């Protein structure tokens, strides 16, 4: 299977409801500095359940679109990302993660609320190992992969066993 498209709702610099895609087998994302390219990768990482600290955010509410510092402090704002995954047989599987007004997170598969364990288990069944993150390389991380100490390499390998 593969990612068909993602649907953002007030996520980081993406205001309102935006559909991004379709994604092909080899898709390039381009644009000027500060336009929002890494925020797109953050959106995909977020919906897969990657920790907020890895997405350049202190708390979940930092990931919600805000016009300026003042709006950031307002409560009750929401955001969400939906990942539309197309299975080998052509059917669509929907993964959704929501930041609720109270600042927590909610997970849904095909528009049904599920808990994190079921959500993660379903991702694992597709070969998506969020904990190992062996398929995501964030901006600036690539060179440090080659400079890992032998101990760190063992830890990395253990996560994918």
């Amino acid at each position, binding site marked *: *299977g*593969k*990612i068909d498209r993602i649907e953002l709702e007030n996520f*980081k*610099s*993406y*205001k*309102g409801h*935006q559909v*991004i*895609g*379709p*994604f*092909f*087998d*080899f*898709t*390039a*994302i*381009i*644009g*000027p500095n*500060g*336009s*929002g*390219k*890494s925020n*797109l*990768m953050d959106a*995909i*990482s977020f919906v897969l359940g990657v920790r907020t600290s890895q997405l350049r955010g202190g708390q979940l509410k930092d990931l919600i*679109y805000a016009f300026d510092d003042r709006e950031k402090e307002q409560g009750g704002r929401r955001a969400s990302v939906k990942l539309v995954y197309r299975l080998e047989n052509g059917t669509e599987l929907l993964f959704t993660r929501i930041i609720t007004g109270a600042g927590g997170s909610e997970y849904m598969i095909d528009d049904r609320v599920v808990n994190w364990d079921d959500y993660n288990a379903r991702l694992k069944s*597709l*070969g*998506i*190992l969020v904990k*190992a993150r*062996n*398929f*995501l*390389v*964030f*901006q*600036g991380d*690539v*060179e*440090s*992969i*080659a*400079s890992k100490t*032998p*101990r*760190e*390499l*063992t830890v*990395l*390998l*253990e996560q*994918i*066993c």
Partner: protein
Amino acid sequence: RLTRFMEALEHISGNIDKIYKQLTKSSRHPLGGSAYLNLENEEEPFLHGIKYSAMPPTKRFRDMEQLSGGEKTVAALALLFSIHSYKPSPFFILDEVDAALDNLNVAKVAGFIRSKSNGLQSIVISLKDTFYHKAEAMVGVYKDFQTGCSRTLTFDLTKFEES
């Protein structure tokens, strides 16, 4: 636990040299460089570590610290792709991994990714045009000047002539 670990290590170190050669071979060095993983201590792999060595075609030093910025990036990508091949996920996302690469190496990495794209979906963020010349689709991101928020446009590049 130990058998699974050794199985993973076996698979990855069998693969890494092949991938590194694919990323470093050129008309001048048709064989490419060499890369391998060694266990620091065969008896207790968990207590010690795994040493990674990569030597570009013209080099004869084993110490990874001596590699230049671009050489380290290529070695890192070889390690990444070979670890990924053990438990492949359906897609890969790379954010400006080509920042330290010269044009020749960018073309080699982009070519490698293109060759893997049947069965593995790749999404690559880049500032260099070499990557989107090899891609099938392009997502252009821009800032909307009225509202200051991000917007995107998607282009299907397969409609244009083969890149």
